[in-house]
C-alpha cells in the first residue's frame, strides 16, 4: 500500500472542513479502504467529536511527536469501520508543538500502512495550515457560496499555487438551491468562475448534517441524506472513479452547466 495524503482546508473557519473530513473518510472506509484521519487543529480538537470517538482518546499527535507513545497507540479505531482510524489533535496551547517536518514524518510512516491519509487543516493560513499542507499529495479546498468564504478560499488557492502544491480541487459546501434559483446565492458556476479551479463536488445544505454531528455519526451513513449522497460521490471521485454530478435542480440546466464547467463536457 502507498497511501495518498489528502489535506482538506478552507481559509475561513466554519465552512465545513471537519464535517467533510469525517464524511469523506467514512465513505472511503465504507468502500473497503484503509483510512487514517489526522486532526491538524492543535489546541482546538474537534474531529474526534464529529466522528463520535471523543471517549476513546488516550494519546494524541503531540504525544507521538514528543515520543510519549508509538504512532499506532495514537491511532483510534472507529466504532463501525475497523479500517478507519483517527489521530487526534492535542489540546495544548503551544502552537509550535507540531512542525511541517513532524507532519511529513508521520504521514510517511502511515503511507505504507493505509490507502488514504486525510488531514483536517485548521482555519487560517498560519502554522497549523502550513503543517497540514506540508505532507499533502493533494489538497481540497472547502468553501461556502458566500463572499467571505470565497474570498478566503481564493487566498488559500493563491498560497497553494505559490508553494507549488498545485491547483486544489473545490468542494462547494452548503449550497441552497432554492436561494440560487432566486438569484440570492452565488451559484456553483459563479464560484468556479471566480476561483478558477476545478470542482470535485457540491454538497447541498442539509439539516441531516447537524443531526449527524450531534450524534457523532457522519451523514454519509444515512442513505436518505442528500448531503450524504454528495459526500459519497466525492469519496468515489477521490478514489479515481468518474461519478456524474448530482442533479440539484430538476427545473434548470444546472447539472449540464456544472458538467461543462468541470470539464466533463
Amino acid at each position, binding site marked *: 500500500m502507498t497511501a495518498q495524503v489528502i489535506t482538506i482546508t478552507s481559509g475561513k473557519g466554519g465552512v465545513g472542513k471537519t464535517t467533510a473530513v469525517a464524511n469523506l473518510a467514512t465513505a472511503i472506509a465504507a468502500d473497503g479502504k484503509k483510512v487514517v484521519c489526522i486532526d491538524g487543529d492543535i489546541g482546538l480538537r474537534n474531529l474526534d467529536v464529529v466522528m463520535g470517538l471523543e471517549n476513546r482518546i488516550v494519546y494524541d499527535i503531540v504525544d507521538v511527536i514528543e515520543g510519549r507513545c508509538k504512532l499506532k497507540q495514537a491511532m483510534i479505531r472507529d466504532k463501525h469501520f475497523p479500517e478507519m482510524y483517527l489521530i487526534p489533535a492535542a489540546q495544548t496551547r503551544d502552537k509550535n508543538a507540531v512542525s511541517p517536518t513532524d507532519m511529513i514524518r508521520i504521514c510517511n510512516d502511515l503511507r505504507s500502512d493505509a490507502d488514504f491519509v486525510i488531514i483536517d487543516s485548521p482555519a487560517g493560513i498560519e502554522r497549523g495550515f502550513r503543517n497540514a499542507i506540508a505532507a499533502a499529495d493533494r489538497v481540497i479546498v472547502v468553501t461556502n457560496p*458566500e*463572499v467571505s468564504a*470565497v*474570498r478566503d478560499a*481564493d*487566498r488559500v*488557492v*493563491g498560497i497553494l*499555487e505559490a508553494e507549488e502544491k498545485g*491547483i486544489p480541487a473545490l468542494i462547494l459546501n452548503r449550497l441552497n438551491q432554492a436561494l*440560487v434559483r*432566486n*438569484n*440570492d*446565492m*452565488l*451559484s456553483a458556476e*459563479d464560484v468556479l468562475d*471566480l476561483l*478558477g*479551479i476545478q470542482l470535485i463536488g457540491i454538497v447541498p445544505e442539509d439539516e441531516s448534517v447537524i443531526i449527524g454531528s450531534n450524534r457523532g455519526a457522519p451523514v454519509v451513513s444515512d442513505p436518505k441524506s442528500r448531503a450524504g449522497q454528495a459526500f459519497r460521490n466525492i469519496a468515489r471521485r477521490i478514489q479515481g472513479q468518474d461519478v456524474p454530478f448530482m442533479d440539484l435542480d430538476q427545473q434548470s440546466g444546472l447539472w449540464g452547466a456544472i458538467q461543462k464547467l468541470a470539464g466533463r463536457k
Partner: protein
Amino acid sequence: MNFFTRKRSAENAKERLQLVLVHDRTDLTPAQLESLKDDLLIAISKYIEIDPEAVQIGLERDGRSQRLVADIPLRNVSRRHAG
C-alpha cells in the same frame, strides 16, 4: 426593499468578489492602482499626446492569472504639425 426593483443579491456578491479578488491576488489596493495609472499617463505623455479623459486602465482576471489592460487612445498629431 421592493421585490420588483431590488437587484438580486447574487449579482452583487459576484461583482464585489470579482473586484476584491483581483486586488487580493495582485496585492494592489484601488488607491495604488489609481496612482499607477497616473504615473503611466505621465510617462506616456512624455512621448505622445494622449487624451487623459478617454484612457481606460484596469485589472482583468483570466482564470487564475491577472492582467493589466490599458486602452489609451492617441490624439491625432499630424494635424498639429500641418497647422
